Structures are given as C-alpha cells and as structure tokens.
C-alpha cells in the first residue's frame, strides 16, 4: 500500500515538473519570437503576451526584452507590448528580484522617448514606484513647459500617486493660471491631500461659476481634510435657491451621512429648503436624496 502511494506521489511530482518545464520552454520560445526582428509585428505582440512567465529565467532573455523596450527603431506596438510583458513579470516581486534594477534603469532611459504613449506609460510605472527621477522630470516639465514630457494634467495626475512629492506649490501655480480645464481639475485633485488647502476648497465649492466636477472634487476634499467645513458649506448651498441640483444632492449626502443629527433636526430653515428641493423640478435621483434625508426627521 505504502509502495503504491509512494509511486503515485512520484508520478505526480514528475508530471508537475514536466508541466513546469514545458511552460518554461514555451515562455523561452515566446521570448525568442517576441525579440526577433524577423517576425511580423503581430506575431511579436502575440508572443509578448506569453513572455512574462519566462522573462526572468535568463539574463540574456531579460536583456533582449529590455533592448526591445528601449530601442526606438523597433515598432512602437512591439515596444508597448514589451513594456506590458515586463510590467506583468514585475508584478511577481519575488521572481522579478534579479531583474528589477535593470528594469528600473531602462524605464528611466525610456521616460523621454519620442513616443508620447510609451513615455506616459513608463512615467506612470515609475511614479507608482515613487521614483525620484520621474518625479523630478514631471516637476521640471510643469515649471517649464518647454521641458514637459507629458501634458500638465497627466503630469499632475502621476505626481498625485506620491503624496510626498513636492507638488503642492506647482499645483497651486497651475490653479492660478490653468492651461486648460483638465489641468485645473487634476491640480485640485492633487491638492485634496494638502491640509492647508481647506480655504481653497471652500471657495471652489461655493463658487457657482466653477465647473460642477471641480465643485464635487472640492466637496470630497473638504470631507477628507475638514469635515466640519464641508458641513457648513453644504448647509449654505442647500439654503441657496439658485444653486445646482447635483451640488445640492452632494451637500445633502454629506449632511445625511456625517452631520450632527440633533442639530440638523432643529434647523428649520434648512429643513424648509430641503422640502423645497424635494418639490422642485430637479431630476428624480436628486429628489430621492432629499426624500431620504427628510424621512430621518419625520418630514
């Protein structure tokens, strides 16, 4: 009986080893196709998808993949596929250990590649690693647009991945003179982690001329940074007959979820204005928020 079990175990072990070896071989073959200039772009891109399994199996294969990524004479579709493949391999931190240093160096090298999509993706990966090189490049580009590797809105978005990046002052400069609406929005998003930005967000939230998306960002930022200030602004917005329905609904949600129930129940002016909002021509989904709020106070 014991002999039989031992034989079975050995068989399973052999099967697993064979499977692993076969997967390894397939991975190596994939890298060989992916890095071969003789194959078509389509063949190479398809092979890249199978490459992550084997990318760290040999230093030669890794270097071949990194060469494809950094070689601007390679077709961009193949380079992007190589980046994706390496990124997938990097996800497995333990097995990527021996590849990491070369990978980071290559990403930095490619960060100012002529192709904008590759540049953006590479800088995104580096910023997720909180890389000082990428951070410096992005900040330099925001301060001096002639050096910019990415549009300002994208640079701000990537800088916001690292709360410790020194990006608050540059975001505030952009808010003073935004190059476009998207850049302004991303600057606001970035400043949502800055505890000193509370007055800014109060102003944006109360400003009816401001884009509604920005006002929503301001409400969310205030909730994170200074919930009491959000409550105060929310009340003022609800008392204002001329403000927009979606902003009122956001304000209502803030009060409903986080407000002082006892104080709200006694606030007759507020309850009246919410009653008016419920009876208004606002979209049904917003009026539903008002109904839910009022039901808490038997209105």
């Amino acid at each position, binding site marked *: 009986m014991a002999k039989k079990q031992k034989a079975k175990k050995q068989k399973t072990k052999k099967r697993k080893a064979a499977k692993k070896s076969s997967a390894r071989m397939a991975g190596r073959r994939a890298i060989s196709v992916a890095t071969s200039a003789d194959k078509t772009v389509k063949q190479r891109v398809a092979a890249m998808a199978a490459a992550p399994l084997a990318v760290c199996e040999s*230093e030669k294969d890794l270097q071949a993949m990194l060469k494809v990524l950094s070689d601007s004479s390679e077709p961009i579709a193949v380079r992007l596929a190589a980046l994706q493949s390496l990124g997938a391999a990097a996800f497995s931190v333990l097995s990527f*250990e*021996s590849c990491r240093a070369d990978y980071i*160096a290559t990403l930095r090298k490619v960060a100012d590649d002529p192709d904008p999509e590759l540049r953006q993706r590479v800088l995104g990966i580096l910023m997720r690693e*909180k890389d000082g090189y990428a951070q410096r490049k992005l900040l330099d580009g925001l301060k001096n647009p002639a050096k910019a590797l990415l549009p300002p809105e994208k640079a701000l978005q990537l800088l916001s991945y690292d709360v*410790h990046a020194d990006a608050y*002052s540059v975001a505030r400069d952009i808010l003073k003179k935004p190059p476009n609406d998207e850049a302004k929005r991303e600057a606001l998003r970035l400043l949502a982690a*800055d505890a*000193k930005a509370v007055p800014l967000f109060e102003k944006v939230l109360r400003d009816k001329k401001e884009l509604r998306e920005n006002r929503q960002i301001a409400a969310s930022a205030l909730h994170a940074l200074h919930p009491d200030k959000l409550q105060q602004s929310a009340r003022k917005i609800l008392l204002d007959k001329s403000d927009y329905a979606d902003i009122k609904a956001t304000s209502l949600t803030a009060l409903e979820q986080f407000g002082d129930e006892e104080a709200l129940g006694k606030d007759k002016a507020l309850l009246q204005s919410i009653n008016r909002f419920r009876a208004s021509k606002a979209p049904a989904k917003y009026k539903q928020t008002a109904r839910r709020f009022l039901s808490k106070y038997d209105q």
Partner: protein
Amino acid sequence: MRNATIERALSEPQFAALVDALAADPDRREQLAELLREDHALYNDRGAATVVRMRGWVLLALARVGVTDAALIFVLEELDTGIDAYLVACAARALRSYPHPDATLAPFVARALANIRYRDEPVSLESYGEYVVSATGSSAVSELLATLAWLGPHARGVLPELDALRAQSGLTRKLRLDLDRALQAIRGSAYGEGAATPACCGGALADARSTSTFAPDSRRDCGPVRSIVLQDQDGRSITFADFFCQRPSIVVFFYTRCDNPMKCSLTVTKLARVQKLLAARRLADKIHSAAITYDPAFDLPERLRVYGQDRGVRMDADHRMLRAVEDNDALRKHFELGVNFVESLVNRHRIEVYILDAEGRIAVSFARIHWDEADVVARAAAVLERDEFRFA
C-alpha cells in the same frame, strides 16, 4: 552646533557644494553629522525625493572622510529602517569608512539587505543627485554585500541569513559573485581565522547612542507645552498637563501617511505590544501611553482611531492616540522632534519614543533605531518606581 552661515534657502547644487566644502575642511567635518538631523532648517519645505538626494550626498561625504562615532547612528538608522535604495546604498558605503568595525554592525547590514532586496535599484554614487539610466554601476544590494565583505569575520553572526540568501535564486550573476566574495571574507579565508574580536563594551552600537537617559534634576520642564490642547481618537480634548503630568507615560510619534512600514506603522504596532506588556505587569493604570501624530492637520480623530485600531492599540482614558489641536510647533520644539515638513506634510522623520515622568518631563528617549518593547516597559516601570518613592 548649527552653523549660522548655513542658509535654509540653498539650491541643491549649493547644498552639494557646501557638503563638499565641509568634507574638505578637517576643522568643519564634524558639521556633516549635524546636516543629517531631520529638523535641520536646510530640509524645510523640500520634497521627500529632494531630502533623499541631500542626505545621500552627506552620507557619501562621510564615506570619503570617515564616519565618526557621532555620525554612526545616522548610518545605522538608514540601514535599520531605510526603504530607499539610494540612501541605503549611501549608508552601506559610508559604514565602510567607520574605523572600528565590529560584530554589532553586521545585523544592521543583514537587516538592510532583507529590507531592500526587493526594492533594489541601480545607483550612481559619484555625483550629486544623479539617477542611473543604464544597467551599469552599483546598487543598494551590491553596496551592502561589499560592506559585509568589509566586515569580514565580524559578520559571522549573520552567516545563516547569508547562506539562506545564497540558496535562493533571486540574485543576478554579478550579485551572486559579490555574495560569494562576502561569504569568503566572513568565513575568514581573506582575513585569517579568528580575526573577529569580540566587541568591547557594547561595541560600535554603544557608541552610536540611540538611547538617552536624563537624571531627574537635568530633565527639561514641560512648562511651555503644559497648556497645549490635544485631541484624542474620539474627539475628546485634553491638555498636555492633564494627560502627561499625572503619571509616567510612554509616548511615540507617528503619522498616518507615513509610507515606510519600518517606521510609523511598526512603531504604533509596537506601542500596542507595550500596552500588553504593561497590562501583564499590572501597570496599565499606572503608566499612560500615547501615540502623537506629527501631522495633526490631516490626522483627524477618525483617522487616528482607525490607524490605532488596525494595529491593535488599546484606546481608553489612559491610553490615547493624540493630535495637537494647535501649536504643534511648541510640541515639536519641546521634544526636539526629528521631523521636517514640506508645506504641511512630513518629508522625513526618525523613529522616536519617550518615557515621561509624572511631571511630563522627558526621562528617557529612544531614537532612530529599533527599540525593544520589554526594555521600554522596564525603564518606564523604573521611572514609576522612582516617582512613587519621591512622592511617598
């Protein structure tokens, strides 16, 4: 001594030139260690990545001129808790210039190796602020292995960790060769059998002085912070005097947005362990404990509560997570906190733990390198005993 000529508004190239000038002048070299204090005005309002570049350059200057006993603690701190590959590489290189290698240094290097191996990066240690964009050059792991080789037989205590690393497949061929060289040096063939002499009187680690004890008559009065209002995890307000000037206390500093798991998260987790040890010794109602945030504007009560809860911290009237409602600067000055800020956010801080006596004065401080929970509790119990004896 702070040098009055050091301007806080130096550009990075000016800072690098200043460091080079200090290193070149034997009479001013000792100021290099001073530049590694987090609270130095030079680090005010700099981003974390800039602080990394600046500190790295100071460490590399120390590597050139030799790490002194005063500077050693900064080097060990980086090895103990650093997660930035560049700074760890700089610290590893700097340690090799310390004139008294001994066995107490090896665990720091081994720990750094374990912390950094999955975050390794290529580094350039030749010029200020340079980032490597090619695969050539050094890396944090490579520098650490060179430091282990430099320690030679002094690093025998960490051989099991290194043998385990050798048995794994994670290193590149080049690093594997570096590791083999280190192993060879440690096993003695390069330095001769028995070259490792036991560390005298606690060795280099004792010279590094991470713990300071203050006699009762030399303790700083807490007058300037007595009336500071602190808010706890439940939003309750209490003055510094009302919480800290009743019984001895154990105080740690932290902030919830710290991204180094070896620092704030671990410190608060260890505070929870301290609280358990206090309870086991029936001291939980005789010794207060608190975790105070460096970042009071962001760390609102709800954040404090969740952060403490997630790390098993006991929170009640005697044990609290706290934020200064106002005048955080006075608190910072009183404790001489090792922290600096970029705008409202921490850009760099050290590990720091304090034992306060029943008058809220600092009796013992632990800074920079990891502290032992049982040791902190034992010392706090000793402070309690002395206070009880004094007031009896």
